[in-house]
């Protein structure tokens, strides 16, 4: 049973990763190229790692984008399915559809939106190669801390009585998450490495496309995994998790 879910997570994750790759290729790739053009034009800065000097050509890197998003999607789908299996029947979600979509949304907010707000991604040519270790460490601390904050918020919500007023649960959950994750984000040091003369519209469009890439991936994962799980349950002739009758299939 667990392995069925994991296999499903890998397949749906691969599809979600490829969809995210298509989005990234259409909306993000042109901005990456713009940034690399700027980097090549400003090659006077000897300290920068020039993408133009690499052994992998730019065309191969464009293809590699799909490899990267697909691999990331497969791994994310695998982890997602394990979290789904671990939480199924333990939280307050009544159906597999509800659990799948809410879990994907919660993960997206915890490991994408929060790190995005504090340490927004930059196109090539912006970051200082000297500080990559530092930047990665702070980013990962925030990512892990934010994920733990989301888990704490879920625990708070599940522990509440079911006859509490309708606003009590979401407010308590959101409050827990905002206080813990927001406090951590405030405590971590700020990093600002965008050069003063770097075009602001390019940064803005790149960051939006990056956020969109992750949004496509997690939306496709949550929705796709939910559909696949509900359909599999219906095919097995079992009622969906809520115990309600599924609509008669033709």
């Amino acid at each position, binding site marked *: *049973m*667990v*392995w069925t879910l994991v296999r499903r997570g890998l397949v749906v994750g691969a599809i979600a990763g490829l969809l995210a790759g298509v989005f*990234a290729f259409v909306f*993000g*790739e042109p901005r*990456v190229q713009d940034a690399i053009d700027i980097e090549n034009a400003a090659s006077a800065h000897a300290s*920068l*790692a020039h993408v133009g000097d*690499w*052994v*992998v050509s730019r065309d191969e*890197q*464009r293809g*590699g*984008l*799909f490899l*990267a*998003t697909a*691999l*990331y999607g*497969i*791994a*994310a789908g*695998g*982890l997602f399915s*394990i979290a789904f*299996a*671990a939480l*199924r*029947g*333990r*939280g*307050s*979600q*009544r159906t597999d559809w509800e659990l799948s979509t809410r879990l994907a949304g919660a993960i997206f907010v915890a490991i*994408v939106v929060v*790190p*995005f707000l504090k*340490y*927004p*991604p*930059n*196109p*090539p*040519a912006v*970051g200082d190669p000297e500080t*990559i270790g530092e*930047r*990665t460490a702070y*980013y990962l601390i925030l990512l892990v801390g934010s994920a733990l904050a989301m888990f704490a918020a879920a625990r708070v919500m599940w522990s509440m009585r*079911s006859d509490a007023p309708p606003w009590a649960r979401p407010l308590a959950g959101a409050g827990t998450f905002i206080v813990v994750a927001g406090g951590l984000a405030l405590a971590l040091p700020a990093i600002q490495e965008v050069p003063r003369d770097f075009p602001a519209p390019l940064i803005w469009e*790149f960051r939006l*496309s*990056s*956020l969109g*890439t*992750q949004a496509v991936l997690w939306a496709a994962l949550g929705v796709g995994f939910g559909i696949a799980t509900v359909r599999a349950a219906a095919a097995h002739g079992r009622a969906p*998790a809520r*115990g309600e009758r599924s609509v008669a299939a033709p």
Partner: protein
Amino acid sequence: MDPAANVQPFPLRQLLPALLLGVLFMLAIYLVQYDQGVSQTGSLLHELMHDGRHLLGVPCH
């Protein structure tokens, strides 16, 4: 109504091997996103998946 009344949670013993597999998935994410040529593949993987790394929002150069 009792939430999730009809769903039996998977026992922890069934979940453990899957959790171990999860470590492997994290390693895959590490390779895609954070490897700086530390692995024996040199910088090939890093260069090939470089655009994905930037567009997936991970700190880079």
